[in-house]
């Protein structure tokens, strides 16, 4: 709190006084009861009215005798940036929504602590054993297309390159699925990845900053395929009764995204945080995931998955880097991506 900050502060307080007064009236409405509050930082789409947030909050508050404060910040990468920005003074007790590509960096911050729980058996294609992070859902990246206009989609990256199709992808610098595609090509083609990207460059009609923009372009007919998830068609089947949207199975296998949660070392509610992680792996939480987050739950609920999930493609090979390797490959892979697509 010294140096140039102290010279800033007097001005600063003038600047925030008005907002504080406004906020004061807002806050006055909030109950200040003695019930403990568990603050969970997550990505924005988790807390939205259409995400898992509302149901999760209701269910957890019904059994915890506490208040669950879910706060949404951008996407997974923004979430990590937020934690690093706030540092040890963060209000967060838990963070939920990082993925395996971000885990190594999140661990390095030293802000997280071990969950201390006995990990249960997960229903995931890979084994999970980590003392800090617990997964709550997962999915495979895939190129999604319209079955009716494209009955025979490409079956590999090379077939995609050889096709005349227009695809839209996300920028790995600003989007987690974009980074996921980077890892997919790395995992599937290793040393040939730059060559694959050089080939794909002609297929990529454009690159968007986030998933929503890309999916919107695809929905509007601007591209033949969009990078999304194998579970995306489930949304259209369940919510729109439309089974024309399909994911194309690739022979190389599909890269996995595993979304995880972890406890903050500085939490003042360690018991409650552990309760939440326990709850996160329960049937109640896990059965909310498929039709709100449109991903596979980390543990299959006793009632199984919605019927539409049985009609999704099941990749023959699950591709995955452990967090260290994903982190080590990230920067060189980005350089290769930039070089290929900047031409």
């Amino acid at each position, binding site marked *: 709190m010294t140096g140039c900050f102290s010279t800033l502060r007097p001005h600063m307080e003038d*600047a925030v006084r008005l907002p504080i007064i406004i906020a004061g009236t*807002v806050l006055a409405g909030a109950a200040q009861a003695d019930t403990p509050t568990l603050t969970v930082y997550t990505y924005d789409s988790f807390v939205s009215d259409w995400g898992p947030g509302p149901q999760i909050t209701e269910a957890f508050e019904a059994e915890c005798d506490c208040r669950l404060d879910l706060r949404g910040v951008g996407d997974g990468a923004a979430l990590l940036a937020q934690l690093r920005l706030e540092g040890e003074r963060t209000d967060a007790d838990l963070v939920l929504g990082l993925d395996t590509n971000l885990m190594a*960096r999140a661990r390095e911050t030293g802000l997280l602590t071990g969950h201390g729980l006995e990990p249960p058996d997960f229903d995931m294609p890979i084994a999970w054993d980590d003392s800090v992070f617990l997964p709550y859902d997962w999915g495979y990246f895939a190129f999604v297309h319209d079955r009716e206009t494209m009955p025979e989609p490409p079956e590999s990256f090379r077939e995609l390159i050889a096709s005349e199709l227009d695809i839209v992808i996300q920028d790995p610098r600003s989007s987690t699925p974009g980074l996921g595609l980077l890892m997919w090509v790395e995992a599937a083609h290793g040393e040939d990845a730059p060559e694959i990207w050089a080939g794909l460059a002609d297929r990529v009609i454009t*690159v968007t900053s986030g998933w929503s923009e890309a999916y919107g372009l695809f929905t509007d007919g601007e591209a033949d395929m969009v990078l999304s998830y194998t579970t995306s068609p489930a949304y*259209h089947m369940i919510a729109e009764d439309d089974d024309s949207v399909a994911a194309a199975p690739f022979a190389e296998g599909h890269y996995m995204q595993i979304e995880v949660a972890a406890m903050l070392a500085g939490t003042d509610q360690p018991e409650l945080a552990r309760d939440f992680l326990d709850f996160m792996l329960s049937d109640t939480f896990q059965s909310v995931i498929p039709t709100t987050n449109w991903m596979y739950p980390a543990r299959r609920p006793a009632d199984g998955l919605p019927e539409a999930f049985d009609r999704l493609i099941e990749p023959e090979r699950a591709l995955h880097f452990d967090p260290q390797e994903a982190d080590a490959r990230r920067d060189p892979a980005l350089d290769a991506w930039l070089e290929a697509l900047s031409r």
Partner: protein
Amino acid sequence: MARSAQPLGLWAGAAAAALLVCVVFGSLAAVAWRAEGAARFGPADWAALRFTLTQASLSALFSVALAVPVARALARRRFTGRGVLITLLGAPFILPTIVAVLGLLAVFGRSGILSAALGWAGLEPVRIYGLHGVVLAHVFFNLPLATRLLLQGWLAVPAERFRLAAAFGFGPRDVFRHIEWPMLREVVPGAVLVVFLICLTSFAVALTLGGGPRATTVELAIYQAFRFDFDLARAALLALVQFGLCALAALVVYRVAAPAAMGGGLDRPVERHDLQGRGLALLDGGLIGLAALFLLTPLAMIVMNGVPGLAGLPGTVWLAAGRSLLVALAATGLVIAMALGLALAVVGFERAGRRGAGAALEVLGMVALAASPLVIGTGLFILIFPIADPSALALAVTALVNAVMALPFALRALLPALRGVEADHGRLADSLGIGGRARLRLVLLPRLRHPLGFSAGLAAALSMGDLGVIVLFAGGDAATLPLQLYRLMGAYRMGDAAGAALLLLALSLALFWAFDRGGRRDARG
């Protein structure tokens, strides 16, 4: 002599300037302070800088070059629905980028109506992605603003000048040479600067329509520094580069722009006697029609796509719309207070013969245009976090940042008008001893209704459509309409999102319309 207008202007100006410095530079300083280690400016950054400059320059030149004939046609023609058309033409500027981009692509995209028409004629579809796409999108966004800024210039020409021109029997060519050209030399550089600065911080539009990472702008590099690398030093350095570009551009413009030399007038409505020719009317009609076609077709697509989803929008979206309205109104009040204060101070300095101080303050008022929203948001977060709960302040900070971001436009609209009023009526007011508050109430405000209404409308509409800093402040349950729109898209609900986009478009336009009309209630034309 100038003393009379000063105390009021200086105090308000100082307060506005302090707030501005705090938000724009305080946030940058906070990011730099929080950074560890030094930043380097690599080859990729140079490439981003080059692309940013290229696209922003081209976008600014095209936007303003096209705006000149359109504004001229609108300035010299009166027809039913002219006011509505002018308001509607402003719509692209206030739309959230994602909505505008999807609307634009519905016309110019691969499966857009233009490609469909070309296909019908047996031609290849258009390929929009590339530098030309970026420039097209930026012209779509900024042509309306440039047109409005130039239109203000035309409206500021005293009616007596046109009467005199008529008395001399001037044709359109003479009017252009003796009246319009000097006015344009005064107004165009400022308009070019504004559009250039807006395009400077473009990121999602540039990336999406640029077709990939070759369209990386400095703002995207800042985004990457935050999100991908968490390299705050680099983010701060890049933000500083953006300010440098802003200062440089401002300097160039002040060199080029001619000082105001229009002279006094008697506030009477303009009547043009030099425009009797039928060919000229056809030309003007054609120009207005083309601009309307270019700007309104994408809007029509947004409306068409949005109508089916509008009725079924969930209650939370309407609630968010109400919240956004409040934020917009708060931001508008703040913008008007700040812009008026700054403008009074600038003109006060100029009248006191301190042109340097006036110019510095004016540049300060423009600098927010070059500020990276991400840096402002993150910086404010760093500043607020130790003393208050940022998530509780999410809406208040959103309004504040929206106000700061809209200030340059308000100042741009107010300053020339205020200068004009002071030049025309200042001496008389001085001789009558009207100063301070009375001068503001009796002399200045009544004559600033136009630009004030325009500024308020623009600020309200911009604030309404801005996703802004709210995403950084984790204001989970206090979502604004743009945030709800993004959330709908993020939840695959593209139909509902299109409905929300239409709602946003309608509300923004209604706000703009209400303020802008309010500002010209008793003005003819």
